[in-house]
């Protein structure tokens, strides 16, 4: 377990330091949420209706933002080759890197969500619901994104392509996340159904993401 903790600490430090890390993601999240009322109008009733969706889309975009550097930076300076040659399973390396990436970028998004929810006029129940769904769902976004990051790791400017590859796979997360958040304040479905689906998708991504991204890293390194 020791090497995993060490790797986690290293990854977290780098993610928190490089380019502002956590703050830059939250800042981008804030910018996206701010832009929405300018696009759709300042009608508070409507904002309350689409608020959960705005927060979720903002979180999705903010997560995609830094994903292209997830493995690429380590590949460029040779760290990735060292990690893979160390004999540790690539799946676990991916898992630890994802955990650190989520802790540095996903978690700050979840923490800042209640504040940003005020801008889109969400009521307290909805704020709690959207924060909970983001807490459950953003790890899935990072893990699914890791597959895209692994597949595009050898590309010099793979950022946009990565987003195009990852967004279709992230649609179920978005659907169930937003559905659960809106169901909490009186939708046609109970809150628990979409939330449990969201949990299932996150658990599924917990397996699929590391396996696929690990395979992609093995391919890229040999």
């Amino acid at each position, binding site marked *: 377990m020791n090497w995993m903790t060490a790797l986690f600490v290293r990854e977290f430090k780098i993610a928190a330091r490089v380019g502002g890390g956590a703050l830059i993601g939250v800042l981008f999240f804030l910018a996206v949420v701010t832009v929405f009322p300018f696009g759709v109008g300042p009608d508070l009733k409507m904002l309350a209706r689409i608020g959960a969706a705005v927060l979720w889309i903002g979180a999705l975009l903010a997560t995609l933002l830094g994903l292209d550097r997830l493995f690429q930076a380590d590949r460029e300076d040779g760290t990735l080759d060292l990690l893979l040659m160390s004999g540790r399973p690539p799946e676990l390396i991916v898992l630890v890197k994802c955990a650190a990436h989520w802790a540095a970028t996903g978690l700050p998004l979840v923490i800042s969500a209640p504040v940003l929810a005020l801008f889109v006029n969400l009521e307290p129940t909805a704020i709690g619901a959207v924060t909970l769904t983001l807490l459950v769902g953003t790890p899935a976004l990072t893990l699914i994104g890791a*597959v895209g990051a692994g597949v595009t790791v050898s590309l010099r400017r793979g950022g946009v392509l990565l987003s195009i*590859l990852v967004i279709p796979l992230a649609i*179920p997360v978005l659907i169930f996340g937003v*559905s659960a958040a809106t169901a909490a304040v009186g939708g046609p479905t109970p809150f628990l159904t979409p939330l449990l689906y969201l949990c299932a998708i996150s658990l*599924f991504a917990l397996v699929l993401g590391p396996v696929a991204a690990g395979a992609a890293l093995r391919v890229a390194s040999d």
Partner: protein
Amino acid sequence: MTLYDLANPTRFLSLVERIMPWLIGATVLALATGLYMAFFYAPEDYQQGVTVRIMFVHVPSAWLALLCYAMMAGSSIGTLVWKHPLADVSAKAAAPLGAAFTFLALFSGSIWAKPMWGTWWVWDARLTSFLVLFIMYLGIIALWRTMDDPIKAAKANAILTLVGVINLPIIKFSVDWWNTLHQPASVFRTDGPALHSSILVPLLVMAGAFTLFFIMMHLMFMRNEIYARRIRAMRMRAASAAQPHANVTAQIREV
């Protein structure tokens, strides 16, 4: 790539040359029969009128769009498990075809929507799923085009394709779920009441014709891709022959 591997594509090419005339003949015949049946044998729907004939393009296209993805997934397993170059070629050749069929399914669905519901696009579960599939196809094509090394591109694409094939049912399920949440009325009736044989037979003939066309185009695209790889290998050989001390030879071995 060893001699043994190269022999396989050569045999494959001669096989393609041999069956291509028959395949073209069968495709033309099936398409002609299908078109004739679609227009003169199938009756009009009492509700949809003449627009029911759109179905004879829409449903086979949608079917081929999925079949093509299944084909790519099968080839991807060939790439990852057996590392067969022909599987790489097959997956690469299938991607634009799948995108074309998905586009055709989307286009015909959109055109069908206009007289049926008065709008060019409905966020119907089936159309939406196909839109997502279309984006996935385009992403796969983009990934093929951005990676230079054919072997690494094949493996990266194989992983992406397989992740996609695992996710497709989840996407389909979530889109269906989302759709019932927002508009309870289901729209396309192809899986609703049982189709009468006067519709079903032309539909199956058209589906067969589309499948034959797909196989024909897939073989043609595969042949083109094999030619492209030979050209690439020969150019690299020429480059290494021109400057014998450069380490280009190391690259050739990779190809």
